[in-house]
């Protein structure tokens, strides 16, 4: 199919889809007049029932906990897929990372980037941990905090070199963090079964709303997700960096 023909076919299909979309969307309640019952019910009962002041976290990790487990495993599978796709192929060789390789004409990192990057690593790690452990109280949680934690590894790469990144986040540690996070979620779910309730039931003591140690299983699950997301994103980052810095095609200049 030629590009021009494909474009024409798409435009016809898109026009039809557009009409259907507009037709369907005009049937929705007016923007700003939320009609569904669930949001109102949850906003009324979640704090009393789960002692979590962040109702989004209560929904994500408790009421909808099993769906989030599924989403976490999509993430796990995607990271696994990247690791498998980007491993050294049969005809490729791995060489010691050489940042100054002749075929990589990346500009040298400026001192300003190095200094600011290094100065930011500590605060970013602290902020990431803060987001993870306060997930049940304030905006944040394992997903957001995990991504922020992984950013710290990127800052290390920006302000140092690839070998520095590998030294502060060796593969064994990131692999372990990712797997422990994925397994931890299921383990916390099994806790419910062990206590004679349902899988992922919130069986830990709930405490008082607003306290750091409250909301039962929500903070441990946040911690597991944070580990998994941070480990997964650092793994993604190093897999892609490895492609440019470590893995060489046969005959490629090194």
């Amino acid at each position, binding site marked *: 199919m030629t590009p021009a023909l494909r474009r024409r076919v798409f435009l016809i299909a*898109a026009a039809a889809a557009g009409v259907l979309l507009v037709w369907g969307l005009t049937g929705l309640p007016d923007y700003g007049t939320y009609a*569904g019952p669930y949001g109102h019910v949850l906003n009324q009962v979640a704090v009393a029932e789960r002692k979590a002041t962040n109702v989004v976290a209560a929904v994500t990790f408790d009421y909808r906990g099993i769906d989030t487990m599924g989403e976490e495993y999509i993430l796990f599978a995607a990271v696994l897929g990247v690791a498998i796709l980007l491993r050294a192929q049969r005809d490729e060789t791995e060489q010691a990372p050489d940042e100054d390789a002749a075929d990589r004409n990346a500009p040298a990192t400026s001192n300003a980037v190095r200094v600011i990057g290094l100065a930011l690593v500590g605060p970013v790690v602290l902020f990431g941990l803060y987001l993870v452990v306060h997930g049940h109280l304030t905006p944040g949680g394992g997903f957001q905090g995990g991504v922020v934690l992984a950013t710290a590894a990127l800052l290390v790469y920006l302000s140092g070199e690839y070998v520095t990144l590998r030294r502060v986040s060796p593969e064994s540690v990131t692999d372990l963090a990712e797997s422990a996070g994925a397994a931890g979620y299921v383990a916390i779910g099994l806790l419910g079964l062990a206590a004679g309730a349902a899988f992922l039931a919130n069986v830990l003591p709930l405490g008082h709303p607003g306290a750091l140690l409250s909301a039962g299983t929500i903070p441990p699950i946040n911690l597991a997700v944070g580990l998994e997301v941070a480990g997964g994103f650092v793994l993604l980052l190093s897999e892609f960096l490895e492609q440019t810095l470590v893995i060489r095609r046969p005959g490629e200049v090194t």
Partner: protein
Amino acid sequence: MSFLPYGVAAWLLLVGLYGVVTSRNLVHAIICLSVAQSSTYILLLSVGFERGGTAPIFLDVPVGTKAVDPVVGALALTDVVVGATVSALLLALAVQAYKHHGTLDPERFGRDQD
């Protein structure tokens, strides 16, 4: 204009798909897919929005304060992170496609290999 956010969601979906269909570069196609995907965030969050509602976080405000729907917020939250990793998976496929075909243009795959 109470329809505008829904219109934006529909527009992002269609314009992202147009980009995927007409793309001559896999990296560009993956970014277009992310644009199309971002329409789901807009649609989800605007369905759950309530005029004058605050964030559904009752640490500083008492329970009973008018707040937006937390369910769609939770859906969008996991959507964002999972979407990022799926983009990474697609980019890894693009890296291998480039190694195999020597180009990122899907039109030229399998045509002028050495």
